[in-house]
């Protein structure tokens, strides 16, 4: 699906991405983390073909981004920008969603049914102006305007930053459903390790333009030294489980940790009762 081969990107002799190699398969859900200015957005733009690597090559579904136009890539790749206001312009939400479907060659009736379906989960009045919505709602409309295109790859730049807990969960559950049910590949930038742990089985960490870690989110979450390099703190449950001496994956969420604690307390009490 996505293949990066030793990719570097420099602006005026300053290297923003250095020697990045990675492979993300169809249907994967990966989080991309790293400190501010690490080059996360730059890496995403490279994958979208908005900028071209100075060295190395990027293949999306087997084709190099060098010889494909962004608009051609946009047929299968959806990109959510860090700032949703860059994308929104429609007078109404409905208009925003249907924009450009005819460019893609979608038939009129198909376009209408897609828009209706998307409006169904968006749960917003389709006649409201996107620019009058709250920040979280605008973010969701921007995401919805990508979903109607039925992309097979979603690139999300900090989709949950600035959202409250409820809006954040709505957003992430929608993305997770698309990943699970439609097999959409997701690469998502986030600073929130709790979200990475809950939704993304795989995590990549970027620091100073280099990929410093790539692996299972649960396992990377225990590498506190590496996380610190990328200005991240591990999810609290994982930190607790590690302090308690549990193996990765044994008990990483509140419920299983509580169960473990309860059973060990009970075990301890029973042992105490015997003596």
């Amino acid at each position: 699906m996505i293949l990066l081969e030793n990719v570097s990107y420099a602006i005026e002799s300053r290297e923003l991405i250095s020697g990045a190699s990675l492979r993300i398969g169809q249907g994967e859900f990966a989080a991309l983390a790293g400190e501010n200015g690490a080059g996360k957005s730059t890496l995403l733009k490279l994958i979208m073909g908005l900028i071209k690597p100075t060295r190395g090559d990027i293949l999306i579904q087997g084709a190099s981004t060098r010889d494909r136009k962004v608009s051609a890539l946009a047929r299968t790749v959806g990109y959510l920008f860090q700032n949703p206001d860059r994308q929104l312009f429609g007078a109404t939400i409905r208009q925003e969603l249907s924009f450009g479907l005819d460019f893609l060659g979608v038939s009129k009736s198909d376009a209408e049914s897609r828009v209706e379906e998307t409006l169904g989960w968006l749960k917003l009045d389709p006649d409201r102006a996107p620019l009058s919505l709250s920040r979280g709602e605008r973010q969701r409309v921007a995401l919805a305007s990508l979903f109607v295109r039925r992309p097979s790859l979603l690139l999300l730049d900090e989709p949950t930053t600035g959202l409250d807990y409820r809006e954040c969960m709505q957003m992430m559950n929608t993305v997770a459903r698309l990943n699970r049910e439609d097999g959409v590949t997701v690469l998502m930038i986030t600073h929130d390790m709790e979200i990475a742990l809950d939704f993304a089985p795989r995590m990549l960490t970027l620091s100073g333009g280099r990929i410093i870690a790539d692996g299972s989110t649960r396992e990377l979450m225990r590498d506190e030294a590496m996380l610190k390099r990328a200005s991240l703190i591990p999810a609290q449950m994982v930190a607790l489980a590690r302090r308690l001496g549990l193996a990765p994956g044994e008990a990483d969420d509140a419920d299983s940790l509580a169960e473990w604690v309860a059973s060990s307390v009970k075990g301890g009490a029973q042992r105490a009762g015997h003596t």
Partner: protein
Amino acid sequence: MPGILEYQSGDTFLHRAHPLVKLLLAAVICVGGFLTQSLWVNLALLALSIVGGFALGMGRKVKASLKGAGSLCLFLFVVQLPFVRMGRTLLPLPFGLRITDLGLRYCAQLGMRLLGATLPLVLMLGVTRLSDLTNTLVAQLGIPYRYAFVITTAIRFIPVLFVEMRDVIEAQTARGVELDGSFKQKIRLIPPLCVPLLVSCVQRMENNALAAELRGFYLRKRGSGYRRYPLSAADAPALAACALILIIAIIT
């Protein structure tokens, strides 16, 4: 690399000169081009700007402005030329249009005047920090701070707008918008490109105005700036040049 309207740090005598002197010099070269009747003086003023620009290490700015303003001047030249009826006809054209000797001279001079007015301004902004310009406009010319601020902020906004425009184009191409489509498609691209840009500009201006107000913008008075800008002996040659250019422009 600083943009075409941005300050470019350096240590030439013009960088060190008094901001007002630089403003005056640029103004005199602009105005001189319009005062003079002689093509040769126009040519000389243009050459002065170009050579001066390269000498200041701002060849890149000179080339960029010549390319930008130059193509506009060329366009005006070609469009106006056939409509001037005065003078001796050199080449008759259909529909009663013609190219005359006076027409050539008149249109060439107009082009040179426009070009000659652009370059000094670009160079002046290249050697003067905007904050210095604002401060002297307020402290020495007595222009109310809010007007001086508006002028310099407008200049400062141009490169910001370019970055903003690039981001909006990126965001819309990522949505499948094609910038090199047919004419009909291009018309349809106006809202997706202009609305986000307009929205972000208005938002930014509103935020900046609020932020400025919260930071005591309206408390600022003529004597408020910390920096003082005394005229020095080093400014004398530039002032003399101003006077000379003005005199030559008036008598020719």
